[in-house]
């Protein structure tokens, strides 16, 4: 799903190659472009970073809605500054993963240091790629905290979209200088004037501050660089101070361990120094520091205000958590504010399609999560689906991309169950409070759902959603939002034709199919983005599914009271379609506690025998019967009812997988 856009998601990394067999010289064996270094870095001699005092440094990001041209602009900036050579092949140079190029999103942010001479001064411009999607709003905020300014790219044809709004506010709240850029002015339908007015109306930026460019053709791109130097203030920080470095990204390399991307807020760092993580309190010796051009290029030192990488014998990405502060051993500093551990917002079960694939999938998951500490992995098992995991993701796009990478990079096909969200319960039962050691618990598995008599309040996660749409769809969209229990917070015409809506959504109402519904009722024109908005009180209940009176553990769900009847009915209907008829009648029921809220009846077979069976076609028939006989092994028995694994898969898995 393309919830985000060309969002540089910060969890990923230079991926390990497929396996240990891959050539060590070429870490991304699956991506030839990355191997051959198609762009020239600035030679092998080490750059003396002390020649770049803070006054000559600019740290900035590019932020944009999906497909508005962020990566293309980055390509041009790299070319103009000589960071890479100018060839036709420079397409999304910083987007190296297959999934990135296919989907037009940046999964792995690649930062790059650019050298640029302007009015006789040599500048060091650090382009810090940031995730643009709110799944990664925390990562974005950490990346932005290493910047002093942003280039806000808006498509001259499409205008402001939902993600543009979300990005703008992130930058605005971080008090960064904003350089508005209107891209794709070469397109036939480009209407930069209209977009300038939108920007003025929504963001209060005077129209004459917008730079009209065509990143594709290079038009006015140089002007953008000049604005970066003029408008964005240099970082603050003093080399004489003790070391204070922010970890804003980390990646894993099979041969060198963790590579942490850092921004120095004070002091300097060099090989051989002993450093400490403020979060883990662990001590490391620095093996290597350097800058990214965009490949790692070692330097003697890095100084206050500069951005680069560090290798220090960290074995796992969890040791270099995004937002952590590094300081010199025995010279502790006040950690930079805002550090949080990754907090999964969407959970889904993941199972191998075939249990014999379990170990392969396990090793693929281990490799992929090496680079992505924000995915939480817990072993789980389901009587129907076998052994698997419950994975926690930062959001939907994160889940989607993770799954796609498993498929593309590890050739793993999996069953991914419909996503659920973490609910909370405020406990009132003294017994339960004692048992949990706290009065508020997070519920991920419906089996843990405490009944209402021991709870004073249930809570559900919410998000503030932004929708930008042509106005003709507004009625349908409002109806859709109301169906999803959303509360309208804002409605604003950003120009004569376009409306921005803001709604507070319960998260679970958008995790399954909201985006698809929105896209389909707006013919693809509406855009959507959301940000975390905390928890709210909710009338939650646990709904059980019964087959001939016996509960089916894996189908129990936590659901809002208002939605229980509709959801129960739908589940029963889907089960009726997927459970094969048997020799006896099967009652399929949805129940809340003892109360039955929906029922479907699956009638028994009265006749099930193939009409013609002679010599001719027996081979094919035997094949079918043997498969059915073998299927008995995989049947999940609920009481006397046999439920094939397929039925669970079809009921549990996400709609989009159909």
């Amino acid at each position, binding site marked *: 799903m393309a919830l985000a856009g060309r969002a540089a998601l910060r969890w990923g990394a230079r991926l390990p190659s497929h396996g240990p067999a891959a050539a060590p010289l070429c870490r991304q064996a699956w991506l030839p472009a990355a191997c051959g270094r198609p762009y020239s870095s600035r030679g092998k001699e080490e750059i003396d970073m002390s020649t770049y005092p803070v006054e000559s440094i600019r740290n900035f990001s590019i932020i944009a809605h999906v497909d508005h041209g962020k990566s293309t602009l980055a390509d041009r900036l790299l070319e103009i500054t000589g960071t890479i050579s100018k060839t036709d092949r420079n397409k999304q140079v910083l987007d190296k993963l297959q999934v990135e190029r296919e989907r037009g999103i940046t999964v792995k942010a690649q930062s790059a240091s650019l050298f640029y001479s302007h009015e006789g001064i040599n500048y060091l411009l650090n382009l810090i790629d940031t995730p643009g999607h709110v799944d990664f709003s925390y990562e974005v905020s950490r990346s932005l905290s290493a910047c002093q300014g942003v280039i806000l790219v808006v498509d001259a044809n499409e205008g402001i979209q939902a993600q543009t709004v979300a990005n703008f506010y992130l930058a605005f709240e971080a008090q960064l200088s904003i350089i508005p850029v209107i891209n794709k002015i070469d397109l036939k339908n480009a209407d930069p004037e209209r977009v300038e007015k939108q920007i003025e109306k929504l963001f209060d930026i005077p129209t004459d501050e917008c730079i009209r460019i065509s990143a594709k053709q290079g038009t006015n791109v140089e002007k953008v660089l000049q604005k970066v130097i003029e408008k964005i203030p240099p970082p603050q920080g003093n080399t004489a101070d003790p070391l204070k470095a922010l970890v804003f990204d980390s990646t894993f390399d099979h041969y060198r361990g963790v590579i942490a991307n850092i921004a120095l807020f004070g002091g300097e760092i060099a090989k051989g120094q002993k450093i400490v993580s403020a979060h883990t309190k662990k001590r490391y010796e620095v093996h290597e520091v350097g800058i990214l051009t965009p490949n790692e290029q070692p330097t003697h030192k890095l100084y206050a205000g500069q951005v680069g990488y560090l290798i220090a014998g960290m074995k796992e990405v969890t040791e270099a958590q995004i937002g952590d502060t590094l300081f010199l051993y025995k010279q502790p500093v006040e950690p930079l504010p805002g550090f949080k551990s990754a907090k999964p917002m969407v959970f889904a079960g993941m199972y191998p399609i075939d249990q014999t694939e379990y170990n392969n999938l396990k090793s693929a998951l281990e490799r992929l999560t090496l680079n992505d500490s924000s995915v939480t992995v817990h072993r789980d098992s389901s009587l129907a689906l076998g052994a698997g995991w419950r994975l926690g993701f930062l959001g939907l796009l994160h889940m989607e991309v993770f799954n796609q990478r498993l498929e593309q990079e590890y050739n793993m096909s999996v069953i991914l169950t419909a996503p659920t969200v973490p609910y909370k319960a405020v406990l009132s039962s003294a017994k339960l409070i004692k048992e949990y050691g706290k009065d508020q618990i997070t519920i991920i598995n419906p089996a843990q759902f405490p009944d209402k008599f021991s709870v004073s309040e249930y809570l559900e996660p919410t998000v503030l959603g932004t929708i930008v749409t042509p106005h003709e769809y507004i009625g349908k969209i409002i109806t859709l939002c109301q169906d999803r229990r959303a509360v309208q917070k804002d409605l604003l015409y950003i120009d004569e034709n376009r409306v921005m809506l803001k709604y507070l959504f319960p998260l679970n109402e958008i995790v399954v199919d909201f985006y698809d519904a929105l896209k389909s009722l707006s013919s693809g024109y509406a855009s959507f983005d959301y940000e975390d908005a905390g928890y709210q009180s909710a009338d939650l209940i646990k709904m059980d599914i019964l087959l001939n009176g016996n509960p089916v553990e894996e189908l129990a769900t936590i659901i809002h009271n208002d939605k229980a009847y509709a959801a129960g009915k739908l589940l029963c209907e889907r089960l009726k379609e997927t459970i094969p008829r048997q020799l006896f009648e099967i009652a399929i029921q949805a129940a809340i506690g003892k109360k039955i809220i929906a029922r479907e009846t699956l009638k028994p077979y009265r006749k099930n025998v193939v009409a013609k069976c002679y*010599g001719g*076609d027996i081979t094919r028939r035997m094949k079918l019967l043997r498969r059915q006989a073998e299927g008995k092994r995989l049947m999940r028995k609920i009481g006397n009812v046999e439920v094939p694994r397929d039925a669970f898969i079809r009921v549990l898995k996400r709609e989009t997988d159909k």
Partner: protein
Amino acid sequence: TPCPQWPYCRKRCSYCNFNTYVVPAVDEAAVRSCLVREAQTLLRLSQVHRWVHRVGSGGVLGPSCPPAASHPLPHSVTSVFFGGGTPSLASPGTIAAVLEAVAGAAHLPAGAEVTLEANPSSTSASALDGFRAAGVNRLSIGVQVRGALPAAAAAAPRGPIVTVLPPQSLDDAELRMLGREHTAAEALKAVEAARGLFPGRTSIDLLFGLPGQSRDAWAQGLEATLRVCDDHISLYQLTLERGTALAAQVRDGALPAPPQDLLADMYQTARSVLVAAGFRHYEVSNFARKGALSTHNLSYWQAEQYIGVGPGAHGRFVLRAEGGCSREARVQTLEPVAWMREVQSQGHGTRSRAVLSPLEQLEELLTLGLRTDEGITHKRWGHFSPQLSLQAVFGEPGEARALQQEGWLVLDNGGLRCTWAGLAVLDSLLPDLLWQLQRV
């Protein structure tokens, strides 16, 4: 038992997915010589004349070779079945040539059942007379011409039988929907003509569960059938086969899909009506009175040996001539032109051969045998499984025991068989039984 295939039809019926071909002109002489040649080759390979056979025992079927010639009866072909396509479109001369070839390569007793599937529109009295003269002695008349039917089965000289193809329906509108060429009146005439020539040995086929067919229409059709029928009726629930015109019409909503409950009602009605009329319900879809069971088809359900001749025909037999003692599943090349080329160059057009393992043979025996009212006798089971008795496999606690307790199955001195209720849901019982068998 050879089962020669005539793969050609004048027109493709809307429900048929058999291996049939509608071509402007058939080179009958070439097809005939290939059928003859292939029948000769396969009979030689099977060495039918040396089959050691006791009546009803099913010949040499066990996983191990029987002691040589303990019953040195001469071995013979028990039945011949001409299927299709529409074999009644072939000339009587072709039928005669094939029968002569069979008789030349193996013993074909005078009483052996020789069935011809026939289509009402190609069964004039004179044509039928010609077929009778050629050696056909049983006719199966239907609207529907079926694909590959095998040939020789065990020797049971109970007199020959000809099957004329199924007449599916005696209603013109229904016949049009099925894409049949003939009308109800033609079908009736054909049945009359056939009964005149093959008294007591004319079978008719009826289809039920046609899209839009009502319970009443079916009951009336049954009554009409009882007024004209002979002593054998096959009645088939219409199967909407993938790739057929009828299935496409139902899928697209142009025709209604018959409800499951209605189909079950139709089947139960027919069973009751026919049994009341003196018919024995001897197989899921087959009814006979006065002992007019189809020897040939029984041989399939009893897992005996049969030889498939012609494009796309299937066979199950032991290749004695090659010193084999294992039952093989053989399929002949599907496409007629390719099949003919192969027969001309190597004597037969066998496209695939697979030795059936003892377990596979037992699986087939269960699947086929339980379709009959007699079920699987201890004796027949013992031929395939000398070591493990029926009792040892299915008498222990497990699926079969549960199915017996629920009233679907019976295991007693007579063997293993379905109850009246169980027969109608056999396909729901089989996976359980096969699963239990596989675990033994």
